[in-house]
């Protein structure tokens, strides 16, 4: 038997992957790991040995001493002449560094003590700088003092290879940078050099935490510099023009982050940093698309190549070039780049299109979003690389997209000219949600062909819930509804775009999908919604709308209940029954609120509720039992 704790660590990681790919079961994994009890025991022993109490106490004592030194000189003791204070600081400086030198270079048996004295020495240097400022009342550009302190600490840490010194230097440089920017409005371009130097030192010392901090420092610097470029007096930038450009350039920036993250994530030191970069990268790609996929009135049609957004246009171009470079590096390492290349090309198209024009903005962002959702989920299942991040984020983004669009369309419907286009917006969402639903089915089939399982249930459930909520919102009294043909041109453009997309997807799925049932059921809801959307107008009475949408709601719930029995899903059945209850309760109160007096209403409701609840529960249990029996029957059949 091998005797190797690192082998056990690898085995623990790999067995988890084998379970997710269906190679072994979780019981088999436990049996395999039980074969190596010695390694497991050695691993936990090693972990126990790493806790070194004296070092912890010395470290804490050093921190207390450092804080004490700062507070002592900050108090500016009366009756202590400045000369005495200066002499004290030099004595402190030389004695602490001297002690550090002794314990680190001469008598190396007490390394922890040496490191503690080294840290105190670095703080003593800072105390000396602040004391000099205090004695001579120096207040001109105090940030220079912090910079001098930071540089002294950085150089000493580099010479002594002291990790905690690097952290102190990082904190001081952060304070210096923030102070320079906040008080003097200095963009501090030079700060990037310090970030690079610190990152290199953390990387060389295999410091994972330091590397992560450097990424966040870089992001801080990025937004600081870009924030400075919004200064109209210096750069002539107008926020209303440059703001959207700054948002869109996050897309190629996201590609760079994801690409670099993929390049470095096999490196143990950079693993955590690279994962964080990938997460940020995908958020940067998704964020601007979803943020601008609304009918916004932007300042001008041509946002890029505009004199009011010059710095950001240049930055956009540079980032696209960097994205291209990253793709080349990825291709050289045989990492698949189709999705990232498509996103880069898309961002290039966005650079040259008049993205300030409402129709262009809406069409581009919506098509981009749907393509992104499909691309992220498809590539995360099909490629061999570790794409867990892309997989999870793909689902999160898809769910967010559908939910945000539902809430957004509903809100726009209410806000639209006193709610005159309420039906148009709400049914418009149903059509959009249908497209999302169909894309999900396509993914399920294409991934299934690669003999992998795609969880279609997630997006199906979100579409079902949002669909129900929207139709439910439509089932109330609706008056003065305008025809969708009177809406802005962009609304009609988007509607027809999604209608044709949905029809195209239905035709495609009808030819390739073995499962026609769900397509047929969803088509009922889709075509009913589309029909009502186009016939709605001022000539239609609210009674007609009410009838149509309440029937549609019953149809929708019926579809869900029927489908739950076909796929043997208890969760879906419970959800459908809950939806049914909500609908019935709402309609009951709608009808009887004005007809009955307060007390009578509640008494009758209570009695009906008890009877109805008992009946419903009986039928729900029958339904669930039927599902459970059906599951057992399937299990016995397969055995």
């Amino acid at each position, binding site marked *: 038997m091998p005797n190797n704790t690192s082998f056990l660590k690898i085995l623990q990681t790999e067995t988890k992957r084998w379970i997710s790919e269906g190679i072994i079961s979780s019981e088999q994994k436990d049996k395999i790991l039980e074969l190596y009890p010695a390694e497991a025991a050695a691993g936990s022993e090693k972990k126990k040995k790493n806790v070194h109490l004296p070092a912890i106490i010395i470290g804490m004592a050093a921190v207390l001493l450092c804080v004490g030194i700062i507070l002592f000189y900050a108090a500016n003791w*009366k009756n202590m002449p400045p000369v005495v204070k200066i002499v004290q600081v*030099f004595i402190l400086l030389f004695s602490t560094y001297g002690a550090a030198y002794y314990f680190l270079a001469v008598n190396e048996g007490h390394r922890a003590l040496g490191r503690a004295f080294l840290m105190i020495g670095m703080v003593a240097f800072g105390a000396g700088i602040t004391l000099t400022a205090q004695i001579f009342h120096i207040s001109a550009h105090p940030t220079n003092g912090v910079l001098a302190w930071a540089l002294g600490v950085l150089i000493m840490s580099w010479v002594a290879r002291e990790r905690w010194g690097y952290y102190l230097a990082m904190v001081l440089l952060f304070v210096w940078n923030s102070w320079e920017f906040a008080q003097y409005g200095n963009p501090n371009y030079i700060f990037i050099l310090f970030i690079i130097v610190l990152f290199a030192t953390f990387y060389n010392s295999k410091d994972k935490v330091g590397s992560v901090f450097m990424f966040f420092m870089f992001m801080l610097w990025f937004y600081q510099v870009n924030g400075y470029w919004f200064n109209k007096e210096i750069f002539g930038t107008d926020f209303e023009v440059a703001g959207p450009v700054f948002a869109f350039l996050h897309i190629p920036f996201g590609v760079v982050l994801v690409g670099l993250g993929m390049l470095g994530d096999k490196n143990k030191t950079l693993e955590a940093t690279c994962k964080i970069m990938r997460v940020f990268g995908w958020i940067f790609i998704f964020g601007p698309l979803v943020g601008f996929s609304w009918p916004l009135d932007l300042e001008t049609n041509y946002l890029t190549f505009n004199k009011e957004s010059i710095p950001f246009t240049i930055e956009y171009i540079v980032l696209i070039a960097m994205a291209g470079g990253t793709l080349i590096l990825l291709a050289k390492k045989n990492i698949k780049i189709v999705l990232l290349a498509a996103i880069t090309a898309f961002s290039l198209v966005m650079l040259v299109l008049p993205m300030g024009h409402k129709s262009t903005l809406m069409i581009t962002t919506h098509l981009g979003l749907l393509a992104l959702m499909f691309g992220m989920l498809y590539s995360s299942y099909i490629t061999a690389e570790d794409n867990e991040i892309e997989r999870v984020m793909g689902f999160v983004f898809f769910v967010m997209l559908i939910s945000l669009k539902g809430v957004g369309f509903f809100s726009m419907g209410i806000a639209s000219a006193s709610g005159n286009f309420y039906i148009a917006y709400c049914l418009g969402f149903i059509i959009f949600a249908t497209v999302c639903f169909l894309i999900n089915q396509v993914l399920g089939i294409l991934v299934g062909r690669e003999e992998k399982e795609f969880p279609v249930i997630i997006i199906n459930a979100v579409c079902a819930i949002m669909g129900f909520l929207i139709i439910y919102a439509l089932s109330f009294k609706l008056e003065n509804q305008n025809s969708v043909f009177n809406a802005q041109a962009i609304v009609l453009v988007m509607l027809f775009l999604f209608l044709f997309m949905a029809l195209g997807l239905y035709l495609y799925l009808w030819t390739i999908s073995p499962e026609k049932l769900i397509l047929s059921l969803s088509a009922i809801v889709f075509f009913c919604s589309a029909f009502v959307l186009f016939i709605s107008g001022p000539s239609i009475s609210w009674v007609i709308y009410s009838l149509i949408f309440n029937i549609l709601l019953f149809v929708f719930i019926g579809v869900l209940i029927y489908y739950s029995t076909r796929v043997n899903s208890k969760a879906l059945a419970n959800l459908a029954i809950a939806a049914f209850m909500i609908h019935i309760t709402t309609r009951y109160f709608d009808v009887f609120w004005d007809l009955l007096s307060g007390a009578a209403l509640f008494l009758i409701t209570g009695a009906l509720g008890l009877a109805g609840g008992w009946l419903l529960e009986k039928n729900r249990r029958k339904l669930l039992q039927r599902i459970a029996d059906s599951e057992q029957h399937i299990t016995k059949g397969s055995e």
Partner: protein
Amino acid sequence: MKPFSKKAFIAVVIAQALVLCFMIGKRVFILKTGTKVLLQCEPVDPRSLFSGDYVILNYKISSLSGDLFIDKADSLKKNDTVFVALGKDKEGKFWEAKAASSDRDALNKKDYPVVIRGTVKDPIFLGINIRYGVESYFVPQYEGLEIERELSQASVEISIAGSGESGISRLFLDDREVNFY
């Protein structure tokens, strides 16, 4: 871990000590060799985390009218460097601003022998706010408020080097020098 270079360690320690010496030496040089001027001021008391209690000093020369500027004052932006020529007031006790410019050479040494360097804090319409680096006076803990309470008229003696750089040498309250040590 690789052992560090002992020589480099010692060199860095000495360098840090030299940095402190340089800071102290430069200040002492300005205070010893610079021109002494007395400025009238008004204080407010905040607290600095690292340096302790200090009194913010605001001088009459901290806000200048645009008319005093030899060149165009309306083109001045925040953080621009300016030079202010000082001369004694009518009573001959305090010094006040006589002229100002963003260009040192515009203030010739013959007409304006004492020039202090400052940074534009706020170029506002009614007056240009300038910071000279002598706006903080560090006091022992809890002494700042006491000074402010006793105060009726504060004045500060500053020392100005030939380059325009300045430093506080003494603080006076009602013509009495304030000394904590």
